[in-house]
């Protein structure tokens, strides 16, 4: 079942001089089992939106439907909030800062133990999750603070996926990583998606939007600016959203301006463009 967001609004510090409306009455759907990107400028409400999705903050008005759960302004009504958080998990930006246990395996198992798993079962599952994110066995007994940045992040992600959420939200999962590290994380995300999980990625990287996502949502000053496929987004006018157009699209748009008959809405990668160019006479 898709995630339905109905007339969602959120106001920070309501009734104070510092009041900020982060989200203005937004409604859209996030398709199930797909990779959805949420993009927008800094302060556009992306982080607020994802935090309402698993009930970390209660919306000021409006509601969110995620399978059996309905998040409204009154979180107390939602009795199974812990269940919701297991169902919808967030990997925050720079998740390596939330590591704290003595060893890598203990840190990954920590989440499971909060959900009442026994120590041995939790450790066993933690090992599975760690191998999924490509952390070598020799690291399991080491302190997470000894690892490199990319490794720490993979351990932190393992700490979330070990809960086996159906919806996985990642806030800028590649921020601050080198290209290789980013690639590893993005491939991991693709793997989870293949296992049928719904993925939501908050990002500023338009190449992730174009190459890795099935659906894209654009927020602009707390309002919904666009919801659709990445190709449709870049084929339209994006100048007012302060987002970059990927190099491939800039090139295709230039070709089109110069009278080359390419169909931008059908381009997803270099191969599509090459195929179209080959087909031209």
């Amino acid at each position, binding site marked *: 079942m898709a995630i339905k967001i109905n007339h969602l609004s959120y106001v920070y510090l309501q009734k*104070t*001089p*510092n009041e900020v409306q982060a989200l203005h009455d937004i409604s859209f759907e996030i398709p199930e089992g797909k990779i959805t990107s949420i993009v927008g400028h800094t302060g556009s409400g992306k982080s607020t939106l994802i*935090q309402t999705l*698993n009930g*970390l903050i209660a919306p000021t008005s409006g509601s969110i439907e995620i399978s059996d759960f309905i998040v409204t302004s009154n979180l107390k009504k939602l009795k199974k909030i*812990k269940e919701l*958080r*297991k169902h919808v*998990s*967030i*990997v*925050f930006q720079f*998740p390596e*800062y*939330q*590591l*704290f246990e003595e060893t890598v395996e203990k840190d990954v198992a*920590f*989440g*499971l133990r*909060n*959900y009442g798993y026994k120590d041995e079962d939790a450790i066993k599952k933690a090992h599975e999750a760690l191998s999924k994110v490509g952390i070598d066995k020799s690291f399991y007994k080491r302190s997470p*603070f000894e690892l490199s940045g990319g490794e720490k992040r993979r351990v932190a992600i393992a*700490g*979330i996926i070990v*809960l086996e959420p159906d919806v996985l939200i990642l806030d800028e999962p590649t921020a601050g990583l080198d290209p290789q590290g980013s690639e590893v994380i993005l491939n991991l995300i693709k793997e989870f998606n293949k296992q049928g999980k719904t993925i939501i990625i908050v990002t500023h990287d338009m190449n992730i939007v174009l190459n890795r996502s099935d659906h894209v949502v654009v927020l602009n000053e707390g309002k919904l600016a666009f919801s659709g496929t990445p190709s449709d987004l870049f084929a339209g006018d994006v100048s007012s959203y302060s987002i970059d157009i990927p190099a491939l699209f800039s090139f295709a748009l230039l070709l089109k301006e110069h009278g080359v008959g390419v169909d931008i809405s059908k381009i997803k990668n270099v191969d599509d463009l090459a195929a179209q160019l080959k087909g031209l006479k």
Partner: protein
Amino acid sequence: MNNLTFGRYVPFNTVVHRLDPRNKILMMILLLVSIFFRVSTWSTALILTGFQFLILIGIMLLAHVSFKSLFKSLSMMWILILFLMIIYIFIPNPAYNADHIAFHIGNYAVNYDAFVQAGYIIFRLVMMIMITMILTSTTKPMDLTYALEWYMTPLKIVRFPSHIVAMTLSIALRFIPTLLDETQRIMKAQSSRGVDFNHGGLIRRVRALISLVIPLFVSAISRSEELSNAMEARGYDPYGKRSRYRILSFHFVDLVGFVFVVAIFGAMLTFLILDKKYMNVDFIYWIFHAKPNF
């Protein structure tokens, strides 16, 4: 979480906000001291304290200090209030009137005066909180540290590193909101891993707290290292001479405010001296009999 932010600076533009912070600190000290002047007659004490209380309410209204956050901070204090109550009730005091017995607990007689005494001290405590709240919610933390540094300037003669103290203080203050945000962020991240900070037994809660405190320390230490490197990279020298972007200045309103506070202080002091000199100045008696008993 919002409890932690009580007394935080709220940027309204009122007369109280515009006062010179040095002046505000001095005024606060005078008001605090005057609250603890204690006259020996109950009726006079009550009238004087009530008068101060009304003035404080007036200042709070003038400065747009929220009463809600005052109540919130008071609700955090209930353990202290309870503790005070118990101390006053169970510690015998020869000054209590032996006829004013409220009830007995076993053989121990609980005196009415004990309740009055406890109520009086709690009342003054509340006023103390009101005063400090007025100061902190109308003054930017940076201005407060500048003012403190200004007061510490004379200590330079004895080579007291007033600048370093002020810098340390201002950095500490500057990091409070950052660390609060960080705390909130980590709490959210750990909640995503199923940590429940609000429910569960003691062991669970301590465990939950560990998952918050360790990452908080790690990030605070790495932040402080980054900050000190950044400061050194820009040539910071704690002993160097420096100018200041914001210059504190004393205006006419400051004078008015100061005179007002000094007047209150003076009035309270006069009553105290009269009280000590003539013993038992009864304000009520003055009003209704117009013949002072001295």
